[in-house]
């Protein structure tokens, strides 16, 4: 069981002093970059990895220790697609609450999308987010807007935002509709070695839709969002990336066709990475049942055929990353008519459990591959410099209890919002501890 908020220990990450030594004993250390998968001791000091060793050196014998026997000790997980709503909608989530949810979900860092109010489309706003994230439990890396105000018309000052700390650009929430603007965005971003994160949606086809267009949408009388609304823009953006040589990252892949397009593009050598979300791995449109607005998101839950293809894409590394697309909403935006309900579900505190339950425990993803999709790849794509436990690397570590059974109960979430698609679901595995910069920022009390 996930315990209520007062039971778990969070600490604020005080970076003004170097972290004291910390030893993580007897865990199964899983570090794909260094080809490590064995029981070992992880030694941290001054916020950095001192080493992964079989015996704790004498000098650390008296250091504070965490017993990780029976648990996995992995490079800190990174959720590269979250909406923390600050500035603008602090009633839904704040950087403080969102990073607590992240730490509780096992994420040592998150990348937050720029569709705030106002949008993160200039240097000062990027700096604001970074400043608000100081001393929060997990690290926060802002994504800047591609276009001013996310309006798809004029490029935002990408260079200045990158200089201020933006790790990628995206107009997430919508596509850059005009192909010439998108071409310019890709070309321009090449100067900064950042990915352009593409929300792929042809709104001329999708605009009236609320769920996947298919047998189910016809049945319940809700207008559909066809798979081609996503795939047409995935295809366009892949062609633009191929033509310009720019680096793109396809956000929240939900369809079999998108998986195929990305797979083919990778085979041609296009500089593309892709992500999907736990809900596309675990749920399909029929799970919406009788108009459950907590299963309404964009792109929508698809069919089982799409779900199977998405899983295959994660397994064969066509899809590099699993990210939550954590999208908090207040109850009055969800407890309404289905067609009036906001798109989006939260995911920071269920992401790991869902991937463990629906992929790892089913043998569809090895623990090493899971760490690649949830730590190594997002670190590499965003250039964060982590994702491994090498000596001298930043001591961002997630301790996972892979077998612990629990049921999703939104009342226990650290997020400010409750709009989970997994309410009541029985999952197996969660983060039991989260270490950022050598400090245990989250410690689950069982």
């Amino acid at each position, binding site marked *: 069981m996930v315990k209520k908020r007062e039971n778990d220990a969070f600490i604020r990450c005080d970076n003004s002093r170097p972290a004291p030594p910390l030893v993580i004993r007897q865990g199964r250390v899983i570090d794909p970059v260094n080809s490590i998968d064995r029981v070992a001791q992880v030694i941290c000091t001054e916020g950095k990895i001192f080493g992964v060793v079989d015996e704790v050196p004498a000098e650390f014998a008296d250091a504070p220790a965490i017993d990780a026997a029976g648990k996995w000790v992995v490079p800190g997980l990174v959720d590269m697609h979250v909406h923390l709503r600050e500035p603008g909608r602090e009633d839904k989530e704040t950087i403080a609450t969102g990073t607590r949810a992240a730490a509780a979900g096992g994420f040592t860092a998150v990348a937050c999308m720029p569709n705030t109010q106002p949008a993160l489309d200039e240097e000062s706003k990027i700096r604001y987010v970074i400043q608000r994230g100081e001393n929060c439990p997990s690290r926060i890396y802002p994504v800047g807007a591609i276009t001013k105000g996310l309006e798809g018309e004029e490029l935002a000052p990408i260079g200045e935002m990158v200089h201020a700390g933006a790790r990628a650009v995206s107009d997430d929430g919508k596509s850059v509709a005009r192909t010439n603007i998108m071409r310019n965005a890709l070309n321009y971003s090449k100067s900064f070695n950042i990915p352009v994160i593409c929300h792929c949606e042809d709104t001329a086809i999708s605009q009236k839709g609320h769920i996947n267009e298919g047998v189910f949408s016809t*049945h319940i*009388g*809700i207008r*559909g969002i*066809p798979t081609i609304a996503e795939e047409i823009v995935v295809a366009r953006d892949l062609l633009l990336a191929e033509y310009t040589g720019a680096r793109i990252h396809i956000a929240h892949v939900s369809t079999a066709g998108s998986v195929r397009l990305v797979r083919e593009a990778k085979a041609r050598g296009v500089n593309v990475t892709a992500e999907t979300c736990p809900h596309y791995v675990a749920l399909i449109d029929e799970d919406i049942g009788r108009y459950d607005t907590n299963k309404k998101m964009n792109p929508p839950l698809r069919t089982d055929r799409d779900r199977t293809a998405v899983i295959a894409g994660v397994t064969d590394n066509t899809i590099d990353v699993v990210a939550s697309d954590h999208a908090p909403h207040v109850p*009055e935006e969800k407890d309404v*008519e*289905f067609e*009036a309900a906001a798109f989006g579900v939260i995911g920071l505190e269920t992401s790991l459990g869902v991937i463990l339950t629906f992929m790892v425990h089913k043998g569809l993803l090895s623990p090493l591959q899971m760490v690649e999709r949830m730590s190594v790849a997002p670190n590499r794509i965003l250039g964060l410099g982590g994702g491994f436990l090498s000596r001298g690397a930043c001591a961002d570590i997630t301790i996972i209890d892979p077998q612990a059974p629990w049921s999703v109960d939104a009342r226990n979430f650290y997020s400010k919002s409750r709009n989970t698609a997994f309410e009541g679901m029985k999952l197996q595995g969660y983060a039991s501890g989260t270490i950022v910069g050598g400090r245990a920022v989250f410690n689950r009390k069982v």
Partner: protein
Amino acid sequence: MGISIQHLLGLDGISREDITLMLDTADSFYEVLQREIKVVPTLRGKTVVNLFYEDSTRTRISFELAEKRLSASPLNFSVSNSSVNKGETLRDTIKNIEAMKIDMVVVRHSCAGVPYFLTQCTDAVIVNAGDGLHEHPTQALLDMMTIRQKLGRLEGLKVAIIGDIFHSRVARSNAWGMSTMGMKVVLCGPPTLLPQHYESLGVPMTDDLNEAIDGADVVMMLRLQRERQASGAFPTIREYRNRYCFDLEKLFSLPENVLVMHPGPINRGIELASDVADGNNSVILQQVTNGVAVRMAVLYLLGGGENG
């Protein structure tokens, strides 16, 4: 034996026994409507709220008349805009109305699923008077009542429903309800006005009018919204009329006793020629009459009345 459902949200999944009971009860009320005193006391003291979020004069009047003839107290609550624009959530609206002690809610809304949503907000009995593109069960019931009245049975009859199938909740309710009653339904319209994925409706579709009406016992034409032309679903009214208007020539290709139906309001000269709409095969006004009887039956059965 009473009805097994608590609310009437749609005909999808409703049993043959329940549909038959509603139709039989409607026939009884039809007899009442032929009398000089058309009022019965069965729902005296019950308050029925007609919650209409979408303009609909005829359905609302039909329900209101049904309520009055059952001696219930109707309360009309019409809002042209959805709750989102009104600044109050639908749950708050229904909670406020419920707080005034009401028994039943007849609801029409442009969003599919609202009748079900209301069952999660209130203990009142919910009757769906049309929700988005989803269902319009009392319309389908009155259609079946009319067919049974005129042709003496439902089992084995073929019904062609023609027009804007994609946007039609009438077509959906009829597809499910009529299939349950053993009728053969075919849906017909231009491919742009048919749902691409229709397997869940359980009936065939075609874009060929002649194929659809071949061997039909009943031809039901649907209203064509002129806005569909602007959205690119068909090129011109003329081309639509030439391909899909049910006129005398097509009527003469069918057996003499074929029924011509329309849920109204009719676009004369677009989906239905005037001489057919006003001709001997047309039962369009009988549908309207039966609408009151069917709604009386539904309100009576769900409102706690004994099966009479």
